[in-house]
């Protein structure tokens, strides 16, 4: 199991850069914060012995999704937004809702019995790629095929929406 020191380091990285995504004015800075945040998240996945998911996280998010974000930001030439007048009522209201939401969740998690127990140790050899792969092609065969249809939706949809019409 991960030492608490490392856990809190990565958790802090995840949350601080997550907050930076929300707080930055410049979309590019937000996108880069998002990458760091997701790399920290992938470290947390690995601390939970989910190595395959951790790798997927880095590959898909840092490798694909982030490139897509940056590509769109540069394609549309988005600059840092100018300072707008902040809508005080909406901002404090939203912040309060978010805070109340988290307080609720925090209390609720605190009352959970299984949440306070340490993780049980795993057997020395856990080969999670093999296990996940075996499940993917047996029990999760149907959703795996459906994901293909979903990607078709995304492909057709994106092309139709973003191509220029030739007149």
């Amino acid at each position: 199991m991960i030492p608490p020191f490392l856990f809190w380091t990565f958790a802090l990285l995840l949350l601080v850069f997550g907050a930076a995504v929300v707080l930055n004015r410049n979309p590019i800075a937000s996108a880069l914060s998002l990458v760091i945040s997701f790399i920290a998240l992938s470290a947390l996945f690995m601390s939970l012995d989910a190595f395959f998911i951790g790798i997927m996280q880095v590959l898909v998010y840092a490798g694909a999704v982030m490139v897509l974000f940056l590509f769109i930001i540069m394609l549309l030439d988005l600059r840092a937004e100018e300072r707008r007048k902040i809508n005080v009522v909406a901002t404090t209201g939203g912040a309060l809702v978010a805070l109340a939401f988290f307080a609720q969740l925090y209390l609720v998690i605190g009352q959970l019995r299984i949440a306070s127990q340490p993780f049980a140790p795993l057997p020395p050899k856990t080969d999670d790629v093999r296990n996940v792969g075996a499940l993917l092609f047996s029990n999760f065969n149907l959703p795996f095929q459906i994901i293909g249809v979903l990607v078709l939706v995304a492909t057709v949809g994106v092309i139709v929406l973003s191509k220029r019409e030739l007149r």
Partner: protein
Amino acid sequence: MVTLGDYLVVSGLLFTIGFAGVMLRRNIIIIFMSLELMLNAANLSLVAFSRARLGPNGLPDYNAQVFVFFIITVAAAEVAVGLAIIVALYRARQTTHVEDISTLKF
């Protein structure tokens, strides 16, 4: 010791940060990134639960990890469609601010 509760609290915080971003920010691209944060908070809690619930053979419950695998795929497809809508909007309107979208009122 790091417990399941710690992971859940981190995941809850991440979800809250994302939700706050969706509600507070006006820049659509940043709203999309906040949505990604929310989805990933769910991933973190799924993986943490899968690690806490050991199966009969002492291994984590890999069903939840496969679930996360699907979520990552779906989230990528969702981002692609969302960004395409932004491109279409930008072509028509030259803006990426939610506030500038005012033709539709309540």
